[in-house]
């Protein structure tokens, strides 16, 4: 039996887990065991999928035995399986972190009991979107993960979360409607929604129709990926959610949008004329995003702005549509999912230890908790792209590809990328200087938790009633796991870049994808990529 035919399990297992945890809603311990167990199983399965995609190339699974142009297919290629593995690893770490937080706070019951089923549905939606070889199924994947994210975003229903939730829901629904309109138009123009089939048929349309469909899809995905003019909603809504939720949103949701953009650009509309606008947008995303980050004093908001800014790097790599650029973009996506999530998790820990996530109220954390400082420092430097970390390697890949391309716009992007990297370093260094290095007394409005000193463990058993564990072992452990994963991306950057390179080659070639879906005798028209111009 072919391992790739197990691909639907990557969606089915989390959904099954969601059903089980929903049944076990009053038994939080069993709930935790089921969700962590099933997610680990999914991760193991996805590692197998990645291995199979690496060794034997792209494979397609038809769902329910309906043949490709009509039925739904799931496609496992290097890019989608790499995304699956990274996203599941990250979501597993966040799940462990969240259960640790729940256990430490002692809120064993509602509304957190709804967390597990919703979270697993979110994971299922993400997997579905990554695997889907069908435009409408991609839409369904998006809707699954978005609906789950609405619930997670407004968990607890406090005032700020509802306020942020409204913006988030309305923006997401509008982008979904745009996506659906695009699908309707695509279907009207070609009579199919299968992506491999579309790749063949879209080429026959006239240029105007193609451009219209292309722009519609890119705008819909651009809202989800938070690309500059469409990114206003993200820093507004993400920071209010609970720390683990923000972490998983930051890591996964925007990257699903980026993934969909990559597929649109490489599979559906290769060699089209939108690369120049995409490059301009990428430059603006990088620069405007990071300038926004410099104005913030709340770490969560600052990180949300860096998230927007670094989406620009991925769009940059994508817009070059050369093997080197796309490979670097794939690598960068994998790197950024891990790093951005670990930074948000660390911020959650900072908020617990220091009582606040605002740098005006923090200080002296490096002395209070050296481990926390280390956990922040490594991904922080990684995000800023300091050698030898993976952020540096990804950026070097992008810059090399940009210089290789050699157009004035590409040089502008290269310069923009370097400036953004430096400004990221500045933003991270400001957080570091204020929250970690200065004395707690120097903070403008130091938080009482910060000044209280270590909690009253030493004060005897009687004092334990009102103290919460400031840094529970599970939370620190899962964060540490993610940070180590981020470092591992650096250590194994060679093989990973090899994989990204292969993935980029296959995506630009299109033949492996189309032939795995429609049969190996399908003639694939040569793409007219003029060296990425």
């Amino acid at each position, binding site marked *: 039996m072919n391992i790739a035919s197990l691909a639907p399990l990557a969606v089915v297992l989390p959904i099954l887990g969601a059903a089980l945890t929903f049944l076990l809603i009053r038994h939080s311990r069993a709930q935790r065991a089921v969700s962590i167990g099933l997610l680990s199983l999914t991760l193991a399965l996805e590692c197998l999928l990645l291995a199979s995609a690496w060794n034997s190339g792209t494979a397609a699974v038809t769902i329910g035995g309906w043949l490709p142009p009509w039925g739904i297919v799931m496609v496992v290629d290097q890019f989608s399986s790499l995304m699956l593995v990274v996203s599941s690893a990250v979501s597993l770490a966040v799940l462990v972190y969240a259960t640790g937080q729940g256990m430490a706070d002692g809120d064993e019951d509602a509304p957190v009991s709804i967390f597990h089923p919703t979270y697993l549905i979110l994971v299922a939606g993400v997997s579905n979107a990554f695997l889907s070889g069908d435009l*409408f199924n991609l839409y*369904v994947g998006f*809707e699954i993960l978005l609906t789950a994210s609405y619930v997670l975003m407004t968990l607890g229903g406090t*005032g700020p979360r509802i*306020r942020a*939730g409204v913006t988030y829901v*309305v923006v997401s629904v509008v982008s979904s409607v745009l996506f*659906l*309109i695009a699908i309707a138009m695509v279907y009207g123009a070609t009579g199919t*929604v299968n992506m491999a089939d579309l790749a063949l048929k879209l080429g026959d349309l006239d240029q105007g129709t193609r451009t219209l469909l292309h722009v519609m899809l890119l705008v819909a995905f651009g809202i989800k990926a938070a690309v500059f003019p469409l990114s206003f909603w993200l820093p507004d809504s993400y920071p209010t959610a609970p720390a683990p939720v923000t972490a998983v949103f930051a890591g996964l949701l925007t990257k699903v949008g980026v993934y969909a953009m990559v597929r649109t650009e490489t599979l559906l509309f290769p060699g089209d004329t939108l690369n120049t606008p995409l490059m301009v947008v990428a430059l603006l995303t990088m620069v405007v995003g990071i300038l926004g980050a410099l104005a913030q004093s709340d770490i969560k908001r600052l990180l949300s702005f860096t998230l927007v800014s670094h989406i620009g790097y991925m769009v940059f790599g994508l817009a070059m549509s050369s093997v080197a650029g796309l490979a670097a973009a794939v690598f960068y996506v994998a790197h950024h999912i891990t790093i951005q999530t670990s930074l948000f998790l660390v911020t959650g820990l900072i908020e617990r230890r220091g009582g606040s996530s605002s740098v005006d109220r923090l200080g002296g954390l490096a002395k209070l908790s050296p481990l926390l400082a280390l956990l922040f420092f490594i991904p922080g430097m990684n995000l800023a792209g300091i050698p030898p970390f993976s952020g540096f390697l990804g950026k070097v890949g992008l810059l090399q590809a940009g210089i290789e391309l050699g157009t004035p716009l590409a040089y502008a992007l290269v310069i923009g990328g370097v400036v953004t990297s430096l400004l990221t370093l500045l933003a991270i260094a400001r957080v570091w200087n204020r929250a970690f290095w200065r004395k707690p007394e120097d903070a403008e409005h130091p938080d009482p938790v910060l000044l209280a000193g270590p909690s009253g463990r030493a004060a005897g058993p009687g004092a334990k009633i009102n103290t919460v564990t400031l840094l529970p072992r599970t939370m620190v452990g899962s964060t540490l796991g993610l940070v180590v994963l981020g470092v591992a991306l650096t250590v194994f950057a060679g093989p990973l870049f090899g994989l990204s390179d292969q993935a980029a080659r296959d995506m630009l070639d299109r033949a492996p994808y189309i032939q795995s879906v429609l049969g190996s005798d399908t003639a694939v028209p040569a793409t007219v990529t003029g060296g990425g111009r």
Partner: protein
Amino acid sequence: MSVNLTLLIVMGALYACGIYLILERSLTRVLLGLMLLANATNLLILSTGGYAGLAPFFTKDTPAADYNDPLPQALILTSIVISFAVTAFMLGIIYRTWVLARQDDIQDDVEDLRVAETPSFDAEDDAEIPAETSEFPLTTVTAGGREMPAELAAAEEQPGSLNLESGPEGGTK
């Protein structure tokens, strides 16, 4: 593919009203706007299926072109279910907003306003660095009509004496 004009006009009207409504500040109107947009899109999908044909039950003698295209209807069904879920959730949120704030309007982001009002001057980053940062200043200042080394001038500064600029650490005011 023939075009059904009624469908298109209704669709256009729904889109226009929907877009108008989601630009309002009242949440209930935004929700209504979203519902209209979703339904307009359903009509768009329906119109991509071409003219109304026979129901797609297979009979031997009917040529394939006479059947209605069933796929758009399957897509619409899915999208109706999804918009139903989203509408229910939005209603929940609107109710919660009402419970919490007694109002139906979209509220401004407090943190956004705070950041916007923050002066561009930052006490820690932008404070003026004193001209003399060395511990062994060589400069002389003119105070009370005579020249003297800066650190002596700072030490001499008293309430009532000619106020010099306060130094970085000395300079009692």
